[in-house]
């Protein structure tokens, strides 16, 4: 880079730049650089994604035909519990935190996060939590009470192995890490934005990550507290959740979902943020309705704390509570729908380049809408009374979390991998990855809607030979195998492209936010110079000095 690449450039904000003294493996393990920590988060997420994916395939093999005996119920119960727990806490959380960690300082023109050492602490707490959870397999049996671990099934009399204790401790440790990381990111975004980068000019990914971090610090404590109470029940013979001795089984559900529903938005909002970056860049237009997309995120964040009992419509809480939670759950569909229409409007009249990132983002719009609509049907509680806890619900949650979060993350990774590595991911392998994933995903999960409506409940290790149950389950299993192969294509793509991919240059996609103003990969201190920020698209203004955004009042 030349000395002053940008006319009117300002110095990057002076932060204590971490001194990277060591190199090699020790350099990675001891790093306090947000970029290395971000990549480590992503790698940890990828390793756990492998574990959770293998667990998913084991389940699909067991369920491929009726009355199969590939897995015992005890093994199956451990596998589905670990699959859900892993994918939520040790895949979705680290991958999204990792991307936020890597990208937020770059997108706001800072040289690192506010508290680099604390950042390393969060990472290692999360990894230790995950390892502790997986250690349960050799310590006497993995937890087998489901990822939401309902009491009293999770209590000592019904779960006598140490699995649930490892679950509680593992999630507690990872949860503390998540809260610490959230505080770190909030302070970073509030305090260390580059001059000119006002809140109204923040990239939408930053906006959505910011809202997410508030959800984390408000929601995680509910989980952490209930995990401690469960541990006291199990280890010190208390009775918080044991009805037989005066406790309440329903109390656990309230605590868990008071965390659990905001958690759903914790793992989807950052994906919304990535979609909001990818679609404009590949449509060559600014995001349509920036204020509405940002404000609807805040609306979702607030509403997400008022909807938890829609997970409990079958509990029998009474019609007045059911009605209240149906209202809030239906309302949350409004800001979500607003986002979908804004993304489509961004594509409208654009000049769309269908890179792999854009293919994932475009298909996200449709598969996430399917998940959102089945979510609306589940908010309508008489329907929920029929289909909750069936494969219809399994289909719904995977359309939201896989079709939503994972497709969003894939779009984000294809988009930002060049920044992180300096190399492009192969578009050829990428397109194979995309199409196999899209087909495999829909094969696996679309048929589950029918299985649920036909009466197949979730979490059964096997099922009687009824009607077409065997056939639909076989279709689903074949789809899962295709998804497995597709995931290997993705890993292969990362593996080969990181060394021999096409060199990326600073700004391969001709994007407009700050992270593309520095080199790929960025230096330890991120920026030598920061371009002037007078609008939401500082690099667009540089490219178009004759008609910059800020002259049009944006």
């Amino acid at each position: 880079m030349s000395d002053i690449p940008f006319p009117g450039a300002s110095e990057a904000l002076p932060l204590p730049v971490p001194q990277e003294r060591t190199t090699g493996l020790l350099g990675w393990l001891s790093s306090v650089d947000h970029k290395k920590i971000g990549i480590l988060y992503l790698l940890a997420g990828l390793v756990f994604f492998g574990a959770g994916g293998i667990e998913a395939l084991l389940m699909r093999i067991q369920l491929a035909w009726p009355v199969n005996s590939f897995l015992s119920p005890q093994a199956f119960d451990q596998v589905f519990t670990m699959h859900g727990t892993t994918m939520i806490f040790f895949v979705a959380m680290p991958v999204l935190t990792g991307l936020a960690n890597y990208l937020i300082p770059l997108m706001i023109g800072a040289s690192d996060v506010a508290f680099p050492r604390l950042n390393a602490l969060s990472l290692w707490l999360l990894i230790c939590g995950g390892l502790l959870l997986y250690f349960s397999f050799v310590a006497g049996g993995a937890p087998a009470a489901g990822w939401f671990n309902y009491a009293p099934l999770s209590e000592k009399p019904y779960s006598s192995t140490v699995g649930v204790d490892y679950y509680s401790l593992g999630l507690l440790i990872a949860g503390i890490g998540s809260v610490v990381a959230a505080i770190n990111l909030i302070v970073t975004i509030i305090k260390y934005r580059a001059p000119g980068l006002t809140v109204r000019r923040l990239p939408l990914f930053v906006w959505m990550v910011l809202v997410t971090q508030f959800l984390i610090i408000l929601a995680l404590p509910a989980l952490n507290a209930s995990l401690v109470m469960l541990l006291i029940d199990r280890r010190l013979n208390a009775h918080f959740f044991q009805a037989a001795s005066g406790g309440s089984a329903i109390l656990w559900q309230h605590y868990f979902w008071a965390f659990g529903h905001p958690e759903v938005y914790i793992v989807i909002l950052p994906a919304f943020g990535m979609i909001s970056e990818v679609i404009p860049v590949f449509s060559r237009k600014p995001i349509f309705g920036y204020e509405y997309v940002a404000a609807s995120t805040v609306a979702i964040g607030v509403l997400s704390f008022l909807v938890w009992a829609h997970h409990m419509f079958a509990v029998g809480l009474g019609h007045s509570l059911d009605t209240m939670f149906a209202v809030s759950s239906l309302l949350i569909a409004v800001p979500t729908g607003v986002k979908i229409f804004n993304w489509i409007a961004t594509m409208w009249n654009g000049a769309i380049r269908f890179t792999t990132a854009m293919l994932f983002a475009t298909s996200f719009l449709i598969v996430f809408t399917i998940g959102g609509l089945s979510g609306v049907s589940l908010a309508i509680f008489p329907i929920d009374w029929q289909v909750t806890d069936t494969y219809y619900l399994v289909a719904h949650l995977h359309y939201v979390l896989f079709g939503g979060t994972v497709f969003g993350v894939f779009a984000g990774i294809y988009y930002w991998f060049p920044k992180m590595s300096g190399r492009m991911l192969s578009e050829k392998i990428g397109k194979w990855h995309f199409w196999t994933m899209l087909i495999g995903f829909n094969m696996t999960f679309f048929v589950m809607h029918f299985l649920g409506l036909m009466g197949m409940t979730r979490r059964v290790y096997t099922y009687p030979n009824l009607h077409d149950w065997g056939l639909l389950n076989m279709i689903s299993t074949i789809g899962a195998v295709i998804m497995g192969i597709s995931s290997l294509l993705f890993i292969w793509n990362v593996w080969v492209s990181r060394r021999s991919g096409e060199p990326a240059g600073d700004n391969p996609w001709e994007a407009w936010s700050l992270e593309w103003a520095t080199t790929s990969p960025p230096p330890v201190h991120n920026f030598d110079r920061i371009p002037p920020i007078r609008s939401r698209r500082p690099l667009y203004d540089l490219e178009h000095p004759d008609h910059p955004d800020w002259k049009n009042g944006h």
Partner: protein
Amino acid sequence: MLWAVALVGWLDSDQTMFKNSVFSPVSPQALSITHLTWIVAIVAMAILLLVTALVLYAAFKFRRRPSGFEPRQVFGNSRLEKTWTIGALVVVAFLFVVTVRTMRSSDRTPPPGEQPNLVVTAHQWWWEARYPQSGVVTANEIHIPVGRAWLVQLKSADVIHDWWVPDLGRKIDAIPGHPNHFWIQADKPGTYLGTCAEYCGAGHAWMRIRVIAQPEAEFKAWEQHQLEIPPKPTSGDAAAGNKLFDNFTCVYCHAVEGTPAKADVGPDLTHVASRETLAAGRLINTPENLGKWITDPQEYKPGAHMPNFDFSKQQVRDLVAYLETLK
């Protein structure tokens, strides 16, 4: 979506796919939920078609044209934003109104003080059914008279379970310390399959329900028969089996009316031979299957609370002979 409809049509060519499902209601309660499901499905399909059409149109119509074309930079449009926000609110408000209407018809709140016609207690992993008016006790297979709305009280003996028979209506949790109520009704005679829908441990998959709806007279006859105490066998294998049953650990978990066996850890066996299935839907109830089950319950329902007692072949024969007299 068309391909989905075509797929269902092809799969369901013999019209069995949605037998015993959300789409085969036989009670007014279930029917009102089915109607609601169709209304919501149509609204959802319309929205999905709209979104899909817009996305695909944009994807094909607005692809990048060659060389340097830059589209007009549009930043938004408040009028459009208001249109789709209000549009979404209208759809949601409509859905809310139909929800409340169905809530009332599918799950009527019982009048205070109304006594249940049936008390169902969920256990790991079977269903206990008591008929308080007549005193009948049975398990897993629940007989009801056709066309009558019965109030059911639902309890749990251990962890959380969930009652679900899709043809008959809503599912509802069985929670320790929190008894629930629901209405059960079937307007056509027949056998309706259901299952425990809340994960409850190793035997969750084999905690299935059969509701057998019978015309009033047939139901009365069944009830009468259930109240009779089966005669005590006096000779042969059955007598030996009876002795073994009464003197062995069987009596600590099971009950047989007219004998010292009075426990309710496991299903009441007073009329076990008159049931269609064994072990909550795991096996068809034949003498051969009963023998297999007694020989090793863990083989058929791993994790079940009934252990393998290492019975000799003769002991199994005796027990089967005895249990088969409990018609």
